[in-house]
């Protein structure tokens, strides 16, 4: 089962990258998708490097966490429109990166779940801020026509799904629990990558479907009398 999940997971990890380059003309113009592409490439790279350098896997995981936080913060920075919120994102993310670097310097060889948990909570908070903004100032006629929505939804589902897994990472010592962790993680990774793929697929298609009431009135200029 795990092998199957890892094969499917690998396919869905590559899928956003493939779609990005297939629709390069449109996707390359959108900054958040460029960051997303970079993130997907980084996930792939970290997976490969962790399997090659098994002895330094924890260190690599830490470095990856820092990069992940930086990239996700950039995505949220680009997705959120309010300047004040953007400033808060920069500030909190900088603090968090600093905190992670400190942990990286003083860390033991064990996987540090607190930092991962903190990143997950931070990303979930950013997601809620994004949704709140979308409720108050909708950008698109229908929210799921926006690529930003799918990026954020991917992040939200992934982090909310894996939050408890991260929380209990330290308690899962035997192999059964470890495989459970890997299986659940792989499943949510797949869901996240599907959402990212949808975001890349729909990006640039809805440019003209901004808020307009004209579609409600097919003949607005009827004769007055």
């Amino acid at each position, binding site marked *: 089962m795990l092998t199957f999940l890892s094969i499917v997971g690998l396919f869905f990890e590559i899928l956003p990258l493939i779609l990005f380059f297939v629709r390069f003309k449109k996707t390359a113009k959108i900054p958040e998708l460029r960051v997303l592409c970079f993130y997907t490439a980084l996930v792939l790279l970290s997976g490969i490097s962790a399997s090659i350098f098994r002895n330094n896997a924890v260190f690599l995981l830490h470095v990856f966490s820092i990069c992940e936080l930086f990239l996700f913060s950039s995505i949220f920075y680009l997705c959120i429109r309010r300047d004040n919120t953007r400033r808060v994102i920069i500030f909190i993310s900088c603090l968090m990166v600093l905190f992670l670097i400190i942990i990286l310097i003083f860390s033991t060889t064990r996987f540090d779940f607190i930092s991962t948990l903190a990143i997950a909570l931070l990303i979930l908070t950013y997601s*809620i801020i994004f*949704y709140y903004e*979308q*409720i108050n100032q*909708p950008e698109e*006629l*229908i*929210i*799921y026509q926006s690529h930003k929505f799918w990026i954020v*939804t991917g992040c*939200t*589902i992934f982090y*909310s*799904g*894996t*939050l*408890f*897994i991260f*929380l*209990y990472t*330290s*308690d*899962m*010592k*035997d192999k059964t*629990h470890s495989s*459970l962790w890997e299986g*659940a993680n792989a499943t949510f990774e797949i869901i996240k990558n599907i959402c990212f793929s949808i975001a890349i697929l729909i990006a640039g298609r809805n440019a003209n479907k901004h*808020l307009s*009431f004209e579609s*409600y*009135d097919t003949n*607005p200029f009827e004769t*007055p*009398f």
Partner: protein
Amino acid sequence: MIFLQISGNNVPMVLFFGTIAMLGLTIGLIVFIIFHQRKVIRFQMQLQKMEYDQQKMLLNASIKLQEEERQRIAADLHDDAGPLLATARLYLNENLVNLDKTTQLQSIYNAKQIIDDTIQLIRNISHSLMPPTLKNFGLESAVNDLFQKISSSGSMNATARFHDYRERLQPETELIIFRVIQELVNNILKHSNASFIHLTQNTNNNKFFVRLHHDGRGLTQADFDKLNKSSVGLGLKNIQSRLRVLHGKIFFEKDISQTYFKVTIELIKENSNASS
């Protein structure tokens, strides 16, 4: 950290239910956002559509009024000026046929009289289109002139007092305000059965106010809004569309004493020199 100190055997259960709960919450949140946003957008669309319908109605009213005005001018020219000029032509034609000096002089005199009448008629039409007093002397004089005519008819006492009108407004603005006042006064004369109309003008905080008081049957803001949304009340719609050009507002209310009705026109005062 008590939560984290659960024994190893319970971990998968907590993990499973915790993950399910978190996922449920997240999906619930996303679904809620989608539905809420659609609801909000639908509401905004309805508002926009209502505004659009209102604008369409105002536009229709103004086009209709313009057509009525054209018809009136056409009727005046066709029914009054046309026959007068035709009669003058007949008199002048008679000069060619009848060579008697006295008859010729008489017909020339008659033709002159008719042409004078026609000139007066055309002047009246022209004045109704653009009052010369308004053009030459401004809003205050034009309103006073209008009110004097109403008072002299004896049916109603009309007075006007301009408190702060040292500088004239832009000609287009003055014309629009005058037309609005004319329409309001016309409505009062037709429907209110009032015994007096009193107009006051004032400025405050770069705003220009004109207020009409009368003691007859009047409108409240609710009546005005209702009439504005219905297909009747062409004159009121026209007032609204004229004021919209100036980004002005109009308020209909009953006096605190419940004896008088008040109509207040509020406009942002523009510097005529700067804008010209």
